[in-house]
């Protein structure tokens, strides 16, 4: 198999415009003859479904939540990047492109990232036109703030609820199309298989989560906007329902999965407090604009603190180590996420961590409150401070927050070409579900940008190019391919329901999460990854022997839903380990302990690993086949990433 990235020729800055002219168009009157399925209604899915509807296509949209407005994009806090240069501080499309490529540690495609930076400016215009209430200055114009990995202020925000406001904007556009009858919405419906006819994606099989009914839906193209797979770690900042099942079942039908080991560990999350913990809560990166990260200078002070002999406010200024400011004077507390996370782990490994467990560092607002006053800080971060207090019962205005890294985002995902089409014709992947734009590390405020770029401004152009070559004929849902896929789904469900073992689904999920965090988390090494592979296989065998799923298919069955998702995580976890083992270098969120500089920074190997690793399924328990897409850099020079 040869991976065709379909990157247009010509100079970087002209590729997208040229491509938009070169793609085939579907006549407005013919668009109504095509059906498109969109799975997932987060930023990417809702914006795509709404935009397709506006163009005139017939759209069916699916989400597992009770309403499209619940998708986990809603929880994004900090902001959305755009190269507007409203602050006159030297930003440009090229600078956003450059920061994103560099932030991704040179493991993303230049052409995709440049396009992302180009359309970023349109996203802000679109959202404002929808009535999204971004933060504004007193003069009535839009406000910006800074985020990690950038030296300009290009992040637009809506207090600490940017994702919510952007998603409600996309949801409103979607609602308008639902009201017009151009989009048919299927909430509480989960995709469980992809249907292929003559080698093309032609539909999906879903389960109605209320009645359990297994149903088929046919279309001319299928878009997966189903988010990331961070919940493979059990504990993450993802929503409880976030899962990889749609993407994974597409992988098992032949779609390639790219760079699965590229996972982002977010540096500022509320630390774990007990075994019962069900999820981790992020404290937005925007807090690092004003919060200073530190730990005690010596292990001895940290020990006394953990024992409760002293409190944080007893530690003198000269006994505090603001380690990010010390090591990275140019970027300080605003280094990219992978760098901040790894350094938090380093100081905790040295024994200088705080909190009862020693697995936390301080994020301190005392200086900012002294400088700007508490009301100014409350206006910027009030809801985050409240959330912190609710969870920890501590007041962050009076004592520093305790934070620790947690799994947050997955840069890997289904392999897609420049058109966001997977290697399966007619199957597209958008937003976090694809691998395309963030390389080995995503910069803050870029996920919202990418989700909306894909849905509003990329797919509406590229999907027409494919559909224009497709006949109008619809595949009936009694076609053998649909019947076979339905049978496959039913037999998996029956199997899960019939095992009647002794261990709960959550039990297995926690065990998997433990393996992944231990061996495939913030730091990895070949030996540990080998252990992880064996342990995952063992756990997976045990799952299929001993899992306990109660009830029947024909009802609202929360255990059966979870069992399907965890079954897929148990396979995906192994692929992540395979990918991490294959990549004998450190880059971005993938830190292999064997490959580091004397200063403990990631040591890339551009000679041998400047490629996208796209994996092909060959059967559960079999070794997947690696396909490489070489990354070509014509516009940026590959250098050791430095934030010093």
């Amino acid at each position: 198999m040869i991976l065709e990235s379909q990157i247009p020729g010509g100079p970087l800055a002209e590729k997208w415009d040229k491509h938009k002219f070169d793609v085939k168009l579907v006549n407005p009157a013919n668009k109504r003859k095509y059906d498109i399925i969109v799975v997932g209604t987060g930023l990417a899915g809702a914006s795509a479904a709404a935009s397709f509807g506006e163009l005139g296509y017939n759209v069916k949209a699916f989400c597992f939540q009770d309403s499209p407005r619940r998708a986990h994009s809603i929880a994004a806090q900090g902001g959305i990047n755009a190269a507007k240069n409203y602050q006159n501080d030297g930003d440009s499309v090229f600078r956003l492109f450059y920061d994103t490529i560099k932030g991704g540690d040179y493991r993303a495609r230049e052409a995709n990232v440049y396009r992302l930076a180009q359309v970023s400016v349109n996203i802000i215009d679109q959202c404002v036109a929808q009535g999204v209430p971004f933060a504004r200055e007193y003069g009535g114009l839009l406000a910006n703030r800074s985020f990690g990995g950038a030296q300009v202020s290009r992040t637009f925000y809506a207090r600490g609820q940017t994702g919510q406001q952007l998603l409600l904007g996309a949801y409103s556009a979607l609602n308008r199309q639902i009201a017009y009858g151009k989009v048919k919405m299927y909430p509480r419906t989960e995709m469980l298989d992809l249907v292929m006819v003559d080698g093309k994606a032609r539909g999906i099989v879903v389960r109605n989560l209320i009645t359990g009914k297994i149903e088929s839906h046919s279309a001319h193209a299928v878009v997966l906007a189903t988010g990331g797979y961070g919940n493979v770690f059990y504990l993450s900042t993802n929503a409880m329902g976030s899962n990889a099942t749609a993407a994974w079942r597409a992988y098992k039908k032949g779609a390639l999965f790219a760079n699965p080991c590229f996972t982002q560990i977010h540096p500022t999350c509320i630390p774990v407090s007990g075994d019962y913990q069900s999820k981790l809560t992020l404290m937005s990166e925007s807090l690092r604009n004003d919060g200073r990260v530190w730990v005690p200078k010596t292990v001895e002070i940290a020990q006394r603190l953990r024992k409760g002999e002293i409190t944080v406010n007893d530690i003198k200024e000269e006994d505090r180590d603001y380690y990010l400011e010390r090591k990275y004077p140019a970027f300080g507390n605003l280094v990219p996420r992978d760098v901040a996370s790894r350094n938090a782990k380093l100081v905790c490994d040295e024994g200088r961590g705080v909190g009862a467990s020693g697995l936390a560092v301080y994020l301190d607002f005392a200086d900012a409150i002294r400088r700007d006053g508490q009301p100014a800080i409350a206006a910027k971060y009030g809801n985050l401070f409240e959330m912190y207090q609710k969870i920890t019962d501590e007041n962050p205005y009076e004592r520093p927050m305790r934070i620790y890294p947690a799994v947050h985002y997955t840069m890997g995902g289904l392999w897609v070409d420049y058109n966001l089409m997977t290697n399966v014709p007619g199957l597209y992947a958008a937003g976090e579900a694809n691998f395309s734009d963030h390389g080995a590390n995503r910069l803050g405020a870029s996920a919202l940008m990418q989700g909306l770029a894909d849905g509003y401004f990329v797919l509406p152009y590229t999907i027409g190019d494919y559909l224009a070559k497709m006949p109008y004929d619809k595949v009936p849902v009694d076609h053998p391919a649909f019947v076979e896929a339905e049978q496959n789904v039913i037999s998996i469900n029956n199997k899960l329901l019939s095992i009647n073992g002794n261990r709960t689904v959550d039990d297995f999920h926690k065990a998997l999460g433990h393996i992944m965090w231990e061996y495939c988390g913030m730091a990895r090494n070949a030996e540990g990854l080998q252990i992880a592979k064996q342990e995952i296989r063992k756990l997976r065998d045990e799952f299929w022997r001993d899992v306990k799923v109660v009830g029947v298919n024909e009802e609202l069955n929360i255990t059966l839903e979870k069992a399907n998702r965890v079954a897929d995580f148990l396979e995906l976890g192994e692929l992540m380990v395979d990918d991490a083992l294959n990549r004998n270098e450190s880059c971005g969120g993938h830190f292999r302990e064997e490959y580091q500089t004397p200063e403990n920074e990631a040591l890339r190997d551009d000679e041998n690993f400047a490629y996208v690793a796209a994996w092909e399924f060959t059967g559960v328990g079999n070794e997947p086949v690696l396909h490489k897409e070489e990354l070509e850099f014509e516009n940026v020079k590959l250098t050791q990433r430095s934030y010093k």
Partner: protein
Amino acid sequence: MAGSNPNAKPMDLTLKVWRQKDRNSAGQMVTYPVKGISPDMSFLEMMDVLNEDLLRKGEDPIAFDHDCREGICGMCSLYINGRPHGPERGTTTCQLHMRHFKDGDTITIEPWRAAAFPVHKDLVVDRSAFDRIQQAGGYVSVNTGGVPDANAIPIPKSIADKAFDAATCIGCGACVAACKNASAMLFVSAKVSQLAMLPQGQTERKTRVENMVAQMDIEGFGSCTNTGACAAECPVGISLENIDMLRREFIYAKATSESL
């Protein structure tokens, strides 16, 4: 453990939970004892503990809606001791922590109660009526592309901030559950006022309020009698001022309606 109160003792509690097989079956309260609950657990983590116990015994776990567990998605619900989202003001159930309960407490847990929110199962209700109200007009009719530059529409900060306050509604339905009439006025008014305040919302200002209110009535929500229970229980603090604004908008729209 990193919680604030590491010495707080685990609690034993008695839960009385609404169990209902499906939409068409009758339901009933069922009593479950739970033991060893840490005060640092969230309410839903306490429910997880109970569900794991039930599963191990081969019993059907209690179905409840939840997703982000960060207080923003609006999916969690639960009527706890007679109050939507429980005893803490300005808090969703997922952000409610067990430190607000005492050892030995009995806690009553019911689904949202409203004719327009039928029960799917146990504590899970159907809130699709809210989506249909939004579909009736909760948007600005702009297609993707072809919009002016974002800074071409300056909006005074005070207005932008007020519109933002209204826009933070998470659509959870606590306002309906809190209201003795099961009225959806607070929910509807939040979107109507957000868009009525902003310049982008002016073109459709009148039809929006007319259509959204009409849909609200079709869905079977009750009338608003100004008790203010909705705003008192709203986990994100949507203000009653929005209902005032909705009334003004509605009267103005009807008095000057172009669709007469």
